[in-house]
C-alpha cells in the first residue's frame, strides 16, 4: 500500500498530509512533483491544499494543466483512489474529475476555523470508519469554498448519494445544499473543503479527520 502526495508550486498542506500518512497512520508515502509525466505505483493519491499557482485566474485552473494531472486523471478513471483537499478539491473540479465549481465565499472573507460537518454517506472508500449521520469537527481555511452546481447537477449528486459531507448547524461560505465534500459517481474520487490532515491528532484539537485516512487503509487492505 503506497500513498502519493502531489506537490504543485504553491501547495502548502503537502507536508501535513505526508506527516499524517507516514507518522500517524504509518503507511508508505511519497511526494510527487507536478512536473512528473509518469506516475509510479500508488494506491491512493492526495491532491493537497494550498494556493497552487497563486490561485491565479481561478483556484486550481492552472494546476489542472500540470503534466502530472493527465496521470492523475488516468489513475482516477481506472478506479484509483484520489482525495482532493481544499485547493486539491478545486483542482479536481477544474480537471473535471468532480462536477461543479467553486465561487468566492458569500461573505467575501477568507475563513479559517473549525466547522461542524455531518457525515452523509459511509458507503465509500473514504468514510467507512464513520457512522452515518455522525457530526465531526474539522477545520476549513479557504476563500473560495462556496460550492455551486446547476439544478440538474445537484439532483444527480443527491440521487447518486455523492454528497459525503455537509456543513452542520451553520453554512460558513454559502455552499449550495451545505455541501462540504462530494465524490464522483464511481465513488473513488473525493473532494472536500475541510482539512482532515489538520485534524488527525489530539494535539491539534481534533482527531475527527483521521477516520478518512483509516477508511482508505481499510479499503485498500481488503482489496
Amino acid at each position, binding site marked *: 500500500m503506497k500513498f502519493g502526495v502531489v506537490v504543485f508550486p504553491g501547495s502548502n498542506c503537502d507536508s501535513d498530509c505526508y506527516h499524517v500518512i507516514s507518522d500517524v497512520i504509518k503507511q508508505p508515502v511519497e511526494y510527487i512533483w507536478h512536473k512528473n509525466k509518469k506516475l509510479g505505483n500508488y494506491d491512493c493519491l492526495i491532491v493537497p491544499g494550498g494556493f497552487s499557482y497563486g490561485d491565479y485566474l481561478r483556484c486550481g*485552473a492552472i494546476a489542472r494543466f500540470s503534466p502530472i494531472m493527465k496521470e492523475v486523471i488516468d489513475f482516477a478513471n481506472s478506479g484509483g483512489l484520489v482525495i482532493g483537499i481544499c485547493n486539491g478539491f478545486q483542482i479536481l473540479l477544474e480537471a473535471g474529475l468532480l462536477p461543479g465549481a467553486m465561487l468566492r465565499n458569500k461573505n467575501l472573507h477568507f475563513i479559517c476555523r473549525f466547522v461542524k460537518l455531518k457525515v452523509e454517506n459511509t458507503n465509500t472508500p473514504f468514510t467507512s470508519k464513520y457512522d452515518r449521520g455522525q457530526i465531526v469537527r474539522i477545520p476549513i481555511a479557504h476563500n473560495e469554498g462556496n460550492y455551486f452546481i446547476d439544478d440538474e447537477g445537484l439532483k444527480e449528486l443527491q440521487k447518486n448519494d455523492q454528497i459525503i459531507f455537509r456543513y452542520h448547524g451553520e453554512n460558513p461560505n*454559502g455552499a449550495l445544499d451545505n455541501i462540504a465534500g462530494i465524490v464522483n459517481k464511481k465513488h473513488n474520487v473525493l473532494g472536500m473543503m475541510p482539512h482532515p490532515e489538520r485534524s488527525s491528532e489530539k494535539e491539534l484539537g481534533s482527531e475527527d479527520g483521521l477516520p478518512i485516512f483509516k477508511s482508505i487503509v481499510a479499503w485498500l487492505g481488503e482489496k
Partner: protein
Amino acid sequence: MMFNVEIYISLKKTVADPQGATIKHALESLGHKNLLDVRMGKFIKIKINSNDKSQAEKQAVDFCQKLLANPVIEDYSIKIEEVK
C-alpha cells in the same frame, strides 16, 4: 497581421455575485442611489499574430473554452481588432 484580443469574463446571470453586490453597496454608500445592478468580472488582453480575423477569433474561443472561463459558472465575450 497583429490583433488585439479583449476577453471579458463574468459570472453567469444565474450565479450569485457577492463581489458585485458588495461593490453596489459601496457605491450606494457614496450617494449613488440609481444603481440597478453591479456585476464583477475579469478582463484579459491578448496580442496575437494571425493570418486573418476569423482565425484569431477561433483561437480566442479556444482560449476561453479550455482555460480562461469556467463554463459551469462563467460566460465570456470576445472583442477583436486588427492593430494597424
